[in-house]
Each structure stands twice: as C-alpha cells, then as structure tokens.
C-alpha cells in the first residue's frame, strides 16, 4: 500500500529508500540469539528462587514491605514523649497552679500532687465484673457490666 497520489519525486525517494543497503542478519547473530533463548528457557525451568535476580527481587520486596511498615507506624505513632502529659499543661505549671490554691504546700509536694493528677487523668474506667463459679469446673462471666471502676 502506498499513499495515494504520491508525486514522482517522492516515489523516487521511496524507491531509493527500498534500494539502500540495509543490515542483514549474520549466522553469528542467529547463533547468539538462539543461545540467549536457550539460557532464558533453562532459567524459566528453574524454581523461582534459583532464577537469576530472584533473590534481588525478594530482597527488594522485603525492604519495600519493611519501609511501608515503618512509615505507617511512624505516621500513626510519632516518636515523641509528651512532656505536658497530653493535657496542654506542663507538670511545673500544674504544680504552680496547685501552690496558688494551697500556698502552704511545699514545692516538692505540689509537684507530687501534679503528678498524681496527671496519673489520674490517664486512668481509664474499667468494668467491675463479678465472676461466679459455675456448676462445673469453669467460671461464669456476666454478660452485662454491673458497675465501673472509675479513677
């Protein structure tokens, strides 16, 4: 198929292109290609862990998985130690506030009270479960919580 209405000068270029010397495959190239095919076929028949590059691929995948794990855990739990107990007040500020209310408290005692306050704020309510002995050897756990242990 030729482009329609190809003028004579372009037809001449087309003819020159077809007539120009072009590379021909040599027997050595055929041998080389088929040898490469043979090697690739031999590699294909091996179990995956014995194929060329399999360990590199596995190592790269492991590094990627490790990186994703570290990245996700870092994003979710940043490595920081909350100096203010997470409530917006530093321990010393809390102690100062306590001493303002109770001026007769010693500084150390005010700090101790601030620490106790912080510890109390971090305590979670827990269900108070009444466990009873069952008819057999096992224990019976109630389905509903009767009361809560509050901080």
């Amino acid at each position, binding site marked *: 198929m030729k482009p329609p209405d190809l003028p004579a*000068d372009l037809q001449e270029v087309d003819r*020159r292109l077809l007539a120009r010397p072009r590379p021909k495959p040599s027997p050595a190239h055929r041998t080389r290609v088929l040898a490469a*095919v043979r090697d690739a076929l031999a590699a294909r028949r091996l179990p995956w862990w014995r194929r060329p590059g399999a360990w590199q691929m596995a190592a790269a995948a492991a590094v990627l998985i490790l990186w994703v794990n570290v990245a996700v855990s870092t994003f979710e739990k940043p490595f920081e130690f909350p100096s203010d107990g997470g409530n917006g007040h530093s321990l010393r500020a809390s102690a100062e506030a306590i001493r303002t209310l109770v001026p007769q408290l010693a500084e150390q005692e005010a700090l101790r009270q601030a620490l106790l306050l912080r510890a109390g704020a971090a305590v979670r309510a827990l269900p108070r479960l009444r466990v009873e002995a069952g008819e057999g050897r096992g224990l019976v756990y109630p389905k509903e919580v009767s009361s809560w242990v509050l901080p």
Partner: protein
Amino acid sequence: MTEGPPDDLLDGLVAGQECAFAAIYDRHGAAMLRVAAAIAGSREEAEDAVQDVFVGLVRAGERLRAVQNLRAYLFASVRRAALRRRRRRRPAALASHDVPEARASREAGDAETAARLERALALLPQEQREVVALHVDGGLTFGECAEILAISPNTAASRYRYALGKLRDALKE
C-alpha cells in the same frame, strides 16, 4: 494485520520449544533487524534489540496466548527495544547513524547520495522515522504500522509522506 503464524508455532513458543524460536527468527529476524537498525541507528544496538525481543518472548511464557497477531507483536516489541537502546546511547554516537553495509556501499559508489540519505533519516522526527522503518524496512502495510503505533492508517500514511518530503529536500541540498 494480514499474516498470522500457525497456531502450533505460537504453541511452540509458549511451550518453550527452541525450534519454534528458530523458526520465528528465520521468518522475521531479517526484517526485525532492519527495523531495529533504522530506529536505533546502529547495527550493534539493533542486534541487541532483536535479542532482547527473543528473550522477552521466552519470559512472556503463557502470556503469549493472549497475542492475536504474533507478527504485529514482534514488530511492536522490536520497536520498543530499539527505542530503549537508542535512548541509552550517547548523543555523539547517535549523530553517526551508521550501519556497516551502508558504509561499504558508499565506498563502492553512489557514496554521496547514500550518505546524505542516511544522515537525513537520522534527522527525521522519531514518529516519522518509525513509520519509515516499519513500512520500508519491516515491509509492513500502513494498516499494520498504524496498529503498532496506535494511530490511524491515514496518519501513518501522512507521516510517511512527510518523511519522504524531508528526505527529498535533504537529497536536493
């Protein structure tokens, strides 16, 4: 696409029979090498590109069953491989765009025209050079070129016409 391989040849490739690969080389190897040389601009790169394609066929394995037309698949693969090789080459090496056979011909006669044609081919835009390579060196129709390049047959024919015009101008200079 008009030419397709017999099913047993495709089956042979999938099964990893070396004789099937040899048959494919004997049938399409010469055209693949010409296309690769025209795109990559060097015989050495072209030979490596053709080898890449055959190794790729081995690695494709069962995926080859999805191939509708092996000839189109081969030329599309050799085009990609040659482009990859061309990108890896240094610009200085690209400027020469030479193949030994062309060099020998120039020494024999019609040297100036052959040299100018090779230089002009190397300076064609890639999209036009690809159509020239597939049509002239691969012997593909514009419909087949269009399928490989994901363009319309009319666009392929237009690119070829533009390429011929540029080559004509280069030969006149």
